[in-house]
């Protein structure tokens, strides 16, 4: 290696490549391995998705350009409306529930507490544990007649087991069960983000508030909440986006095949998956995917604005 070309402190006359060009080449060579893979397997499909949304294609016969037909079909498609609605219901359930639990736990764990590291580990582990495995346990624990949850509820309340919620097996309770499971599985992750946020707050602010006679609630309200605003926006953003992308939790929490997903638990990504890989209607599935993307984009923009406003 000719190191002086990289260093480039002296001009090297008569070299075929100019110093700037060489430097650029070296820089690009660092980026290339990642960028080429990223461009071919991510960027190209992204643009391909845009095109697919305007065609009719089953993957075998020639593609047919149909303009906005896929989108006008979406506007009338009640199954898709239901999937969109279910996704929104799921998001509205999961987001505040997770945020409150994660923040509460973070505040509790931010104090001088015995076994703090142990608890942090325990709360965080569901986030990394295999979804298929933990969903299977939940299915058994919440199984309507035999499961311990209903048996304990029966003991405590005296309500006959048949009258207790059938959890994932019950169309009225299914969504609630999924939300509960999601919060259980993911809150440890957001708790850690909140913990980091809490540890970034200058302790002098609390001391000053205490000198001013602020009680615990006032200190929380006037110091913790505003100081945590950037963290809260970050958490909100990833929570909402992740909720819109959900699919695997739904098909795993319903023990059998996914045909057990009834119309109260079919979410957008399920609809995309089914339309593409079962009905082989690639164009229509991509139109749905574009809607998903636009929703996520809209949320991201709103939240970035919010971050700018409340961030500092």
């Amino acid at each position, binding site marked *: *290696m000719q190191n002086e070309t*990289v*260093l480039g402190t002296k001009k090297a006359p008569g070299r075929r490549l100019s110093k700037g060009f060489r*430097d*650029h080449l*070296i*820089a*690009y060579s*660092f*980026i290339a*391995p*990642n960028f*080429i*893979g990223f461009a071919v397997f*991510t960027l*190209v*499909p*992204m643009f*391909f*998705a845009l095109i*697919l949304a305007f065609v009719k294609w089953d*993957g075998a016969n020639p593609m047919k350009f149909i303009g906005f037909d896929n989108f006008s079909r979406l506007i009338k498609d009640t199954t898709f409306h239901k999937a969109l609605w279910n996704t929104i219901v799921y998001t509205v359930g999961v987001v505040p529930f997770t945020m409150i639990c994660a923040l509460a*736990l973070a505040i*509790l764990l931010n104090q001088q*507490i015995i076994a703090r590291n142990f*608890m942090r580990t*325990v*709360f*965080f*582990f569901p986030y*990394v*544990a*295999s*979804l*298929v*495995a933990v969903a*299977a*346990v939940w299915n*058994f624990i919440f199984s309507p007649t*035999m499961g311990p949850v209903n048996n304990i509820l029966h003991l405590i309340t005296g309500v006959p087991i048949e009258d207790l919620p059938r959890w994932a097996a019950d169309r009225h309770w299914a969504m609630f069960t999924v939300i509960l499971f999601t919060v*259980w599985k993911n809150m440890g*992750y957001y708790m*850690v*983000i909140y*913990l980091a*946020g809490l540890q970034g707050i200058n302790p002098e602010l609390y001391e000053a508030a205490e000198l001013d006679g602020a009680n615990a609630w006032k200190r929380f309200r006037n110091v913790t909440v505003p100081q945590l605003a950037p*963290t809260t*926006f970050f*958490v909100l953003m990833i929570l909402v*986006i992740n909720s819109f*992308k959900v699919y695997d939790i739904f098909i*795993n929490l319903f023990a*059998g095949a996914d045909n057990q997903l009834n119309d109260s638990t079919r979410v957008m990504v399920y609809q995309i*998956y089914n339309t593409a*890989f079962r009905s082989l209607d*690639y164009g229509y599935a*991509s139109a749905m*995917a574009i809607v*998903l993307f636009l929703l*996520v984009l809209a949320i991201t923009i709103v939240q970035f604005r919010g971050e700018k406003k409340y961030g500092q």
Partner: protein
Amino acid sequence: MVGANKSFKIATKVLVYVLLALTVLCMLVPYVWMLSSSLKLNKDVFTFPMQWIPAMPRWENYADIWTRIPLGRFIYNTAKLSVIVTVLQLLTSSFAAYAFSKLQFRGKNLLFLGYIATIAIPWQAYMVPQFIMMRSLGLNNTHLAIILLQAFSAFGVFLMRQFYQGIPDELCEAARIDGLSEYGIWARIMLPLSKPALSTLTIFTFVSTWNDFLGPMIYLTKTELKTIQIGLRMFISQYSAEYGLIMAASVVSIIPVLIVFLGLQKYFVQGVAASGIKG
């Protein structure tokens, strides 16, 4: 006055511990139940009140699962994919991140902005064209498909770059004056210094590849190619009434992640916290 204040403080402490203990219980019970059921006969899994420690633990459950499904094959496949994807991601991400943080070149900011923008685009929005592309390359039902999809991550580049930004430029300058090439600086200075960031990315990538569900479900339909998550799910629907066996297989599928997690959890938590702060 002081006494009242003190007893109030003690009461708060007690309340905090009770709340935390209850939460810890809620978080742990599913695993304990999983472990306990994995050592039981089907008929004993749902006895109530629960028998946490089975009187006669059925260790055979742990022997049976390997013959009922090709569990060894599934684990081998998953480990292979996880290791290859992780190594590739570490290499390509740290390599690209070095250029983005320490080198000057045309189009740097635009390119980096592009990387960040695509992090926000959900994979689920382009999984269909990706599948079509892979199929036309003849790569469906190959492990290579999964590797190619996951090895080049924008997130990895972002994470590594954030870390490299914190390493002083003077260090690189000094190395350049000493005659080290840019590749040498990356290999001998940046990589050894970025152990925490590398560990974080390792855990994230390893765990998410190990647990990935939707990717293998779309690409791997042949049994001998399947990963543990898909295999486990197949097993669950096929033997839905064999609770003890299902729980034993679940325990086995969690153990590798548990080991990685416990071993490196310090970095894991730091990584989450760091990515949170940078948001």
